[in-house]
């Protein structure tokens, strides 16, 4: 059969410019991350030390796990502002349960479960009464944080169990446990988004909810699952965080949702939904982490670091807009 090309650019005459554009579209932020690493390796002292690299990865693991959930939410065209508060509440509850004598595994599961439930409620309110996700999760951001304060009376709860600490502060073969967890989360999310029906439905809904509905996709159920996943991952982060801090702290994780959103956007996921990849998000996380780490090593003032990070995010989104135009 004759193959008539309908693209605006005819691929039979691919110029160098077209090809480099294509490469940039596919690799995009990865190139920027590579450049950033190259620059930091040269100018920042001790940047390439293995201990520093593990440190960067360990410090970014919490944001990375939150951002994985956030990616799925943003792919549907939604937002989840509650992840930082969920993290705090989950950490507090799991530490309290562990201190009360619950087996470590159970206490951790409960922490993750709290996140799952919080996410499911967000999802239900977004999907069924069709409340705006921004408002729903703004509300849960506030009440979940409030609950964490209520339960603890506002004070950190010190973790008694040594075993519990392993999840946040332990090491396996010299590599910190949170890095393994982060890697597993990203692998699973990659498979879910690319190789399951649920994952493809996420893209379909984000692209055109009406068309997805008419295609017979269970839009509401999918949305509830999407927010549940984000909540679950926030819950897991909370448990990891508690292990790392040796305590459940009600004030931990403030503004973490913004770091996660920034990473997702840096990773090229479109804010209107339907376009983006989980691989992009981890690159976004690492760009921020490398930038922060490098600036710290270079003794850049903390306040200036904030300014630079903010500008980088805006420029990245600007680049993304230019990219999606062609």
């Amino acid at each position, binding site marked *: *059969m004759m*193959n*008539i*090309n*309908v*693209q*605006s650019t005819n*691929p039979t005459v691919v110029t160098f410019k077209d090809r480099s554009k294509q490469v940039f579209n596919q690799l995009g932020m990865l190139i920027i991350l590579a450049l950033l690493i190259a620059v930091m390796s040269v100018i920042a002292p001790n940047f390439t030390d293995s201990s520093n690299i593990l440190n960067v990865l360990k410090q970014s693991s919490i944001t990375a796990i939150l951002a994985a959930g956030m990616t799925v939410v943003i792919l549907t065209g939604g937002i989840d502002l509650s992840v930082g508060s969920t993290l705090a509440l989950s950490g507090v509850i799991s530490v309290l349960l562990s201190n009360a004598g619950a087996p470590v595994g159970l206490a951790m599961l409960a922490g993750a479960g709290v996140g799952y439930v919080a996410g499911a409620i967000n999802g239900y309110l977004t999907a069924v009464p069709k409340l705006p996700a921004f408002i729903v999760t703004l509300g849960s951001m506030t009440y979940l944080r409030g609950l964490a304060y209520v339960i603890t009376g506002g004070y950190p709860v010190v973790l008694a169990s040594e075993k519990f600490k392993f999840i946040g502060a332990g090491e396996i073969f010299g590599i910190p446990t949170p890095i393994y967890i982060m890697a597993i989360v990203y692998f699973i999310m990659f*498979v879910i988004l690319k*190789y*399951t*029906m649920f994952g*493809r*439905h996420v*893209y*379909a809904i984000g*692209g*055109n909810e*009406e*068309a*997805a*509905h*008419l*295609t*017979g*996709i*269970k839009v509401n159920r999918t949305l509830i699952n999407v927010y549940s996943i984000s909540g679950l991952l926030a819950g897991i982060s909370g448990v990891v965080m508690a292990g790392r801090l040796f305590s459940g702290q009600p004030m931990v994780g403030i503004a973490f949702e913004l770091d996660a959103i920034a990473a997702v956007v840096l990773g090229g996921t479109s804010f209107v939904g*339907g*376009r983006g990849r989980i691989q992009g998000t981890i690159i976004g996380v690492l760009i921020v982490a490398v930038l922060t780490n490098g600036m710290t090593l270079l003794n850049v003032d903390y306040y200036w670091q904030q300014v630079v990070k903010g500008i980088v995010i805006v420029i990245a989104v600007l680049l993304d807009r230019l990219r999606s135009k062609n």
Partner: protein
Amino acid sequence: MNETKKQQMQHPSKNEQPIMSMKGVAKQFSGVKVLQNVDIELFKGEVHALMGENGAGKSTLMKIMAGVYQPDGGSIIYKGEDVRWNHPMDARSKGISVIHQEISLSPNLSIGENILMGTSLKKNRMGLIKWNDIYEKAEKILTSIGSSLDPRADVSSLSVAQQQMVEIARALSLNSEILIMDEPTASLTDKEIEKLFTIIDELKRKGVAIVYISHRMDEIFKISNRFTVLRDGRMVTSGPISETNPTHLVKLMVGRELNELFVRKRSENDTEKKNQQPVLELKGVSDKKIVKNVSLKIYPGEIVGLAGLVGAGRTELVRTIFGLSELSEGEIIIEGNLVQIKNPIDAIKLGIAHVPESRKEQGLLPNLSVKENIMMAQYFQYRKFRILQYKKINREADRYIQELGVRTSSKEQNVMGLSGGNQQKVVIAKWLSIGPKVLLLDEPTRGVDIGAKTEIHKIINQLAEKGLAVLMISSELPEILGVSDRIIVMHEGRLRAELTHAEATQEKIMYYATGEVK
């Protein structure tokens, strides 16, 4: 033809210069010629009826007059000057107003604000709006058209007819000299229509030229002075309304050859079909909005055309069958079983497929590949331990692309990069993948070029031959006539006529669709 030429030459009773004359106007959208060589003249104080089927080019012509579109060719002479509108505001400031079919008011603002929205509002010395001034002015305009609406009230509290009054008042606030009315009576009651006509008479006396678009013959003959008929984007004829009659007008509107289009071969005889069990049967189906008491049967392998004007309730009927609007009364029966369809998922499980009216908003999954668009509805069949088996999916997608002749660079191509016709094939392929029994098509070839149109007609025909029951909405009469075995005509939510292929003609369909009783 000589006669029509003569009619064009005739001017209205008053022998004067036209306020606007358009000559040789042409317009195309992505290669499709929507208007070609259209001439039209408007005179002060006349009502000029613009007639034509759906898609004849009336809306486009209207939008060119109002500056929404710029013509690709031809000229517009307004008050003796050659003009070119770059923006709707240009036309509006020169005295050309449009009352759109869909009311375009801001519901949460007051009537007064809505009326004066297009004008520059009076401000006080502080640069703030003088509200009393606005309300006074608005009230004056409202009284001039005999309306007693309170300019301080919110628009959202008004009935549709009252909102129409506000629209008219707004047009008058701009001192319009040409007023374009697009189906202004579509949502009005008889009483309200009477009132509208009094206002129109008043405007005529004031010397406003009115372009009046309507499908209702009785209205046209009641209020217009002259008419212009468009067909397939060309001007057919123009003349005084006194020189024509409804039958003649309908003939002018539909008179088209069928030769370019696909014509289905109908070999089976009807009596044989009637012994079979219908695939889809509706008994007294009504929805909560417009559809009233519709009953019909569709047999295996049959293509039933659903004709009617825009707003006749055809789309709503199809949406009710697919579970998108609520069934308020009646029964839907699939292969002899009474079924409950609450949502599209129920419908799909029963083997009902629906190709929606608007491809971009409802049919396609943007940013996704052709492959995903085709296979999305049946991913559940290609899973092993919940993991999608892309090898099988790819094979199936290739098969559908080949079977339907979708022209795409590859199955991984983003679906938005395809032409309209190929996008439509992708939407159809999506539904074939579920192995449907009933195929509901809503304007399957809208915005598709003639070549792809014929291909889509062939596909529909092949599907029917495989035993599918097809219900096809189309506003194009040649398409309905060429493809359907049986034609159902709807008017104002009701089934008005059922015609066999043999007895159906464009004229007959138009009669029933416009609500004329023959």
